[in-house]
């Protein structure tokens, strides 16, 4: 767990966003900076919230960023060891197995007993998974402080498998027979009842909402830049697209994470938070 110096650093992080590890200091065009941005955002905005999983992380003191980062490294190591040709199991199963095999996670409060550790930590472990897997963590809103909706949606996704990238198939893939799809043209679709709306979540690509008559299409960077600048396209790239990460490598694709992790650990060292 963290000592008093960690708490001092944590307090300064919480109070002053312009610290030495402020997220805007990164080269956002580098797709590998995504995980660093995600870790820092998670640590600054979520992890220090009093109500954030205080049963698992402790209500009096919180772990330092180094402890959280090393737990993520453990999780990456665990996920990378999954046999791609092995039996597909739900995310919940894998994460529970991870917690059971790693009872001494550094970011957790020490009072956890092996029996109830999973009950209290599952939400926190899921957040860590979202970050290390390159997925967008569920957005916290005032109505939904910890993104519970998205969390419950992904528990049943299977690993290893493409579900985290393409979402759950809307119909049984075995029942689909070959055939022409000439009608799937944007102009034709928009001329009828359905509308196309962009999403920056890869797993939502081609998701159809028949009630709202809305088809989601994956589109990132351009649209996020456009909305940031109120209709004017940004010349500068915004956060790296998820597909850029997958192109360069990804933990779900057995990416050697050493480079990213060494950068992360270096950053942790710079902060003076690393106690390991």
């Amino acid at each position: 767990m963290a000592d008093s110096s960690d708490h001092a650093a944590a307090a300064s992080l919480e109070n002053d966003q312009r610290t030495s590890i402020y997220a805007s200091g990164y080269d956002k065009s580098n797709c590998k900076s995504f995980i660093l941005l995600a870790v820092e955002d998670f640590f600054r905005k979520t992890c220090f919230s009093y109500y954030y999983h205080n049963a698992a992380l402790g209500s009096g003191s919180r772990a330092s960023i180094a402890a959280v980062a090393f737990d993520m490294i453990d999780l990456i190591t665990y996920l990378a060891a999954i046999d791609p040709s092995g039996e597909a199991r739900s995310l919940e199963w894998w994460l529970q197995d991870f917690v059971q095999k790693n009872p001494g996670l550094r970011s957790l409060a020490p009072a956890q007993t092996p029996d109830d550790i999973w009950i209290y930590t599952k939400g926190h472990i899921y957040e860590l998974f979202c970050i290390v897997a390159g997925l967008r963590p569920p957005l916290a809103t005032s109505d939904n402080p910890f993104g519970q909706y998205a969390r419950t949606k992904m528990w049943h996704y299977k690993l290893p498998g493409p579900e985290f990238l393409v979402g759950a198939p809307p119909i049984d893939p075995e029942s689909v027979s070959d055939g022409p799809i000439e009608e799937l043209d944007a102009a034709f679709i928009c001329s009828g009842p359905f509308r196309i709306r962009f999403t920056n979540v890869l797993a939502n690509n081609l998701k159809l909402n028949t009630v709202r008559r809305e088809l989601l299409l994956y589109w990132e960077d351009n649209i996020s830049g456009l909305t940031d600048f109120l209709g004017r396209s940004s010349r500068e790239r915004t956060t790296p697209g998820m597909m850029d990460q997958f192109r360069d490598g990804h933990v779900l694709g057995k990416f050697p994470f050493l480079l990213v992790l060494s950068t992360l650990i270096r950053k942790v060292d710079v902060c003076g938070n690393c106690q390991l």
Partner: protein
Amino acid sequence: MSAETVNSELPAVIDLFFHRGQGKSIRRLQTMLGTRKFYHIRTFRSSVDKYFYRWGIPERQAHLREFRLYRPHLAYLHQQMMGWKPRTFSELFIPGYADRLGWYTAIFAIVFGVLGLLSVVTSIVQMGLAIVALQVSQEQLRLQIAQLGNSTGGP
């Protein structure tokens, strides 16, 4: 795992949706993005690239066999599009994807039906007005006759 397949199928999906139809879909995309400039659309190759690399880029067909991971999604979308039916009165005026000719025929029939109904109503009103006019003219004639009788029956 499947990252490479997703990586290859995403541009294929964009091609499928926006790169056919003689630029109509590209214009739709530009409208959706709020831009008229092609350099703002960076994620997939533009028509200029397509012109230069037209020999090098294999053309994909709009067919489900071209897709592996997005195949159920596209099949479901296709199925929902083709099976869409209006459920409310306002949805009657939205053209479905299947049997557009039937929709246009129905709208044509509805327009002519409404026009016919209007003409019937107009005819009824016209007839009512004609009856009123007839009654007025009859009354006028009766008054004229009465006036004429009074003037001839004098000293």
